[in-house]
């Protein structure tokens, strides 16, 4: 298709030719069609997105208002993209002005952008909402031709994507001729993304596929050390990981959580005999420190970076030639995305090493490896219809000027994400924004939206627009406290702690567990907690070698349904065990001998006595969140059945409940039926009753309340006044639940919890799956398969210094018992 001559010259001067997918995107754009490009990283995806705009701006001339809006999920990415775009523009001598607009953009620059808009504006999803909330937006966007949505796969699965989809309906209304170009990594369901991109009722956006990259080369660490039975630290593999780092030019070490990152980083430093430059990168570190690490990577000054998902997206920082994944990757797509960070050139295979941190993770890594080999995807379906996000968008619309409810309803329903929104729900959302949506009509006088004589609704006060700008967005952080390095001095014989440099931030709940004198790992150092002052946490350096680390909270991402199924299949098929390390093979063989190995569609339930208690272990492989919910519900049922349950622990793979009474006996005598116990009907009243009281529910409610604008975010620097003004959301939750249980926000929180923290949907699907498929095995003692989760019991209930020897001793006794071949 037609690319201007100077573009073709530029390509050939570099010995390149425009790639097929770049030309196809151009073709669609020139026919004024929205289009979805799915391509692996390194395939010239970003340039493909920009080429049509660059060509068109060159033709029409610069300075005609914003031509292209480019949206990326990361602020840092926006800045880098702008920089990367400058090169071809300068080299081709194109008359194109590119600017960024993020949360960091100073007010003066925003004002200038309004007066003299750039041709291409590079920004984040939140900024698109802020842009359309501006009364001047209509003027600013009226000539806009293209919206480019980068990393679309990453945005659509969260509330950010839902909010963006609504902001785009506004953009569409102001710039009816604009097309959308979606750029995405490979996803499980491209059709959903194609539909997401265009207004409801239109033909889904055509799909353009980039050239597939070379198949990645993935290995699983076959450790000479014994693979641990349980736990998540992977410390056993540090020498081998260090060896790999030494052999590679530049290694990214991905881990699943921040605390794991701290642990692995510290262990690597202790093993670092060659003084290799190894750095740490995670979301809680100070931004300045993170930028420094990124810059050092870019300049090739580092040999390895231990990181969390913070380095998963975005452009290349340096020449990574190896990705080490510590712990199981939890999903095939996540693994492929992370692996894609190495050898960012299409023709070279990415190199990756998986390091399972326990025996079940060996199975999971194996499953992930096989899935990656066939490029199987298990990305989540796009998130839809969130009432708290809708409420925020209604306020956004009101900030831009008076509006008609009918028109806004039509506009909102044109988003694929809200295509199923009913008028009744929409009216409830409007009422919520205006007066809080309470049956007790206390706020008519103080309504935020006032009906006008002409049938429109108008924002009641400009102050509300200001409040919207400060509180908008869908990312609600845990309450964080700054951690400062403290110097301890003696003054008049008294110990005085003086705060110094900021090391980063840590979640408030974590700090609330600490007492003065306890040690924890943060920013790669062992710190001693010295107390709190008005700025946050004070901590001093400690020589303690065994810190009380943040307890492992499990990954943010549960094991994907797809990988879980693969793991179950692998377990069921002894022939496939040949690919596993000998210790793991022996472990599974022994399970077959001592207990039983379930078929892929069965769920194994083992019951056995141990010490003076009775245990039930089941293996649904549905992720820790779903298992935790199952544990809650089963404990209630066992309690009612008189089995006197004492506690439970959930892992990614299994659930154990221990009790006073003999469950094996109760089943044998027909007093309890496991089929009844695991019946789907537990998802009814039992779930309701438990969820209502659950602390998880309160956390979810807080998030929804902030997004929907019920309460204001804490603004930095204003903490004190904010604390005086705001009311604890737990109290609001309790009062609202008693007096108006059908309130919009309670239902929003409930929906979120069912999807997220409680994973009720997945649990429900699992209970349907195992109906009539429960394989019960009463045993005299622990089974080999149950050892990992039984070890987790002691891990959760014992902590602190000096307990390690005790733990190790107890663990060995347990393992001996399980592995005894009698």
């Amino acid at each position, binding site marked *: 298709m037609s690319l201007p001559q100077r573009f073709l010259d530029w390509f050939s001067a570099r010995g390149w030719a425009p790639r097929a997918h770049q030309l196809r995107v151009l073709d669609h754009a020139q026919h004024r069609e929205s289009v979805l490009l799915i391509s692996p990283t390194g395939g010239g995806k970003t340039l493909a997105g920009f080429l049509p705009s660059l060509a068109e701006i060159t033709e029409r001339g610069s300075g005609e208002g914003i031509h292209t809006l480019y949206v990326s999920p990361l602020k840092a990415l926006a800045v880098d993209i702008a920089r990367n775009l400058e090169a071809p523009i300068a080299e081709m001598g194109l008359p194109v002005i590119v600017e960024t607009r993020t949360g960091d953009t100073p007010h003066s620059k925003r004002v200038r952008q309004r007066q003299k808009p750039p041709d291409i504006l590079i920004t984040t999803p939140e900024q698109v909402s802020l842009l359309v909330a501006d009364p001047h937006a209509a003027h600013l966007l009226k000539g806009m031709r293209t919206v480019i949505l980068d990393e679309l796969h990453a945005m659509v699965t969260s509330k950010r994507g839902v909010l963006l989809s609504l902001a785009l309906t506004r953009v569409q209304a102001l710039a009816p001729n604009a097309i959308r170009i979606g750029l995405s990594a490979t996803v499980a369901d491209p059709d959903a993304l194609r539909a997401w991109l265009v207004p409801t009722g239109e033909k889904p956006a055509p799909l353009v596929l980039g050239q597939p990259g070379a198949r990645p080369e993935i290995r699983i660490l076959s450790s000479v050390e014994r693979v641990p039975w349980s736990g998540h630290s992977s410390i056993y593999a540090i020498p081998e990981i260090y060896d790999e780092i030494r052999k590679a030019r530049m290694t990214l070490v991905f881990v699943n959580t921040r605390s794991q990152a701290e642990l692995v980083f510290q262990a690597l430093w202790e093993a670092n005999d060659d003084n290799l430059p190894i750095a740490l990168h995670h979301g809680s570190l100070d931004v300045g420190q993170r930028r420094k690490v990124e810059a050092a990577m870019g300049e090739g000054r580092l040999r390895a970076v231990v990181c969390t998902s913070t380095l998963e997206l975005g452009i290349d920082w340096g020449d990574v030639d190896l990705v080490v994944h510590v712990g199981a990757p939890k999903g095939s797509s996540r693994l492929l995305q992370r692996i894609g960070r190495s050898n960012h050139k299409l023709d070279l295979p990415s190199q990756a090493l998986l390091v399972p941190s326990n025996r079940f993770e060996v199975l999971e890594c194996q499953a992930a490896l096989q899935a990656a080999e066939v490029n199987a995807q298990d990305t989540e379906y796009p998130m839809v219809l969130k009432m708290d996000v809708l409420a925020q968008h209604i306020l956004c619309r009101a900030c831009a000027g008076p509006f008609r409810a009918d028109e806004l309803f039509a506009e909102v329903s044109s988003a694929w994400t809200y295509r199923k929104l009913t008028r009744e729900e929409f009216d409830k959302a409007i009422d919520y924004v205006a007066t809080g949506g*309470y049956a007790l009509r*206390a*706020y008519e006088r*103080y309504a935020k939206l006032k009906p006008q004589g002409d049938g429109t609704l108008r924002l009641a006060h400009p102050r509300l627009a200001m409040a919207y700008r400060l509180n908008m967005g869908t990312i609600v952080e845990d309450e964080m406290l700054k951690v400062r390095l403290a110097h301890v001095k003696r003054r008049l014989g008294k110990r005085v702690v003086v705060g110094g440099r900021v090391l980063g931030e840590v979640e408030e709940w974590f700090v609330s567990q600490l007492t003065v004198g306890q040690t924890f790992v943060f920013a790669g150092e062992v710190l001693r907690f010295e107390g709190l002052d008005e700025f946050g946490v004070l901590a001093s350096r400690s020589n303690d070698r065994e810190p009380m680390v943040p307890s492992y909270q499990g990954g943010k991402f549960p094991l994907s349904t797809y990988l879980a199924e693969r793991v179950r299949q692998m377990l069921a098929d002894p022939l496939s065990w040949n690919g596993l390390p000998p210790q793991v093979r022996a472990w599974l063989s022994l399970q077959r001998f001592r207990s039983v190995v379930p078929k892929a569609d069965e769920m194994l339930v083992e019951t056995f006595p141990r010490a003076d208690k009775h245990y039930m272990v089941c293996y649904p492989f549905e992720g820790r969140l779903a298992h935790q919910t199952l544990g809650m519900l089963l404990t209630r049922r066992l309690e009612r059945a008189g089995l006197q349950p004492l506690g439970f622990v959930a892992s990614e793979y299994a659930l154990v409940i221990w009790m006073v009474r003999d469950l094996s006996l109760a089943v044998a005598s027909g007093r309890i039926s496991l089929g009844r116990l695991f019946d789907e009907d537990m998802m009814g009243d039992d779930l309701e009753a438990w969820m209502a009281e659950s602390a998880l529910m309160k956390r979810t409610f807080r998030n929804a309340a902030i997004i929907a604008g*019920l309460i204001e975010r804490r603004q930095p620097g204003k903490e004190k006044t904010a604390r005086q003004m705001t*009311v604890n959301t737990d*109290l609001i939750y309790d*009062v609202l639940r008693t*007096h108006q249980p059908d309130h919009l926000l309670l239902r929003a929180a409930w929906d979120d919890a069912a999807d997220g923290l409680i994973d009720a949907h997945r649990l429900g699907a699992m209970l349907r799956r195992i109906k009539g498929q429960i394989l019960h095995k009463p045993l005299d003692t622990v089974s080999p398969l149950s050892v990992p989760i039984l070890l987790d019991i002691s891990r959760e*209930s014992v902590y602190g210094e000096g307990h390690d020897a005790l733990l190790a001793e107890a663990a060995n006794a347990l393992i001996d018992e399980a592995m005894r071949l009698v």
Partner: protein
Amino acid sequence: MSRSHRITLSGVDFVPHLSGALFAPDFEALLVADLHLEKGTSLARRGVHLPPYDTRESLLQLQAAIEETQPRRLIFLGDSFHDGGARERIDAADLALLRAITAVAETVWITGNHDPSPPQDVGGIIIEEMALGPVTLRHHPRMLRDGEAEISGHLHPAAAIHARGHRIRCRCFIADAQRLIMPAFGSYTGALNVRSEAFDGLFGDFNVWMIGEKAVHRFPAAQVR
């Protein structure tokens, strides 16, 4: 109350109630601090629409406590109304409930910093402080001389203890031999840790009575974190 605790000041016994109220059996008086009625609606003018049910919830809790203890006298220790506009904003049904409550017992409204002049048409009399036998009742704690005893509110005390690796925090009564400070009763009232500066110098060797889900639990100062 299954097993009731007793807090003794100048020879007078007080019983901490699970609701956060304090009962004085000798005087058949129920004491309630920091009700903060209409706190929910207080932010409405700024466009913050908190659920306007806190008043109803607090009053229902209060009604239940009265039902259980059957007091002849009802004494509010100040900050009963969140601000001067509370009377005007209160819902008609809630107002009726409040009047029904004050009609049953002889009611005293002690003034607080939030309500220096509480409404006069909700039943009961208004005073700055009062004596209950040898014990002075007032909103804001004061310095005490030897032999004086006082019950106050204002500070919204909460205490935390550590048990099995968990930190458990709840609102509480805090008292030594001379002074007792009551927890806030209102549904939207936050709480302040008794280890924070605001409590410095107020207590000698104290105990706290923490308000759990189903019972009140006493802990000596040494266990309070």
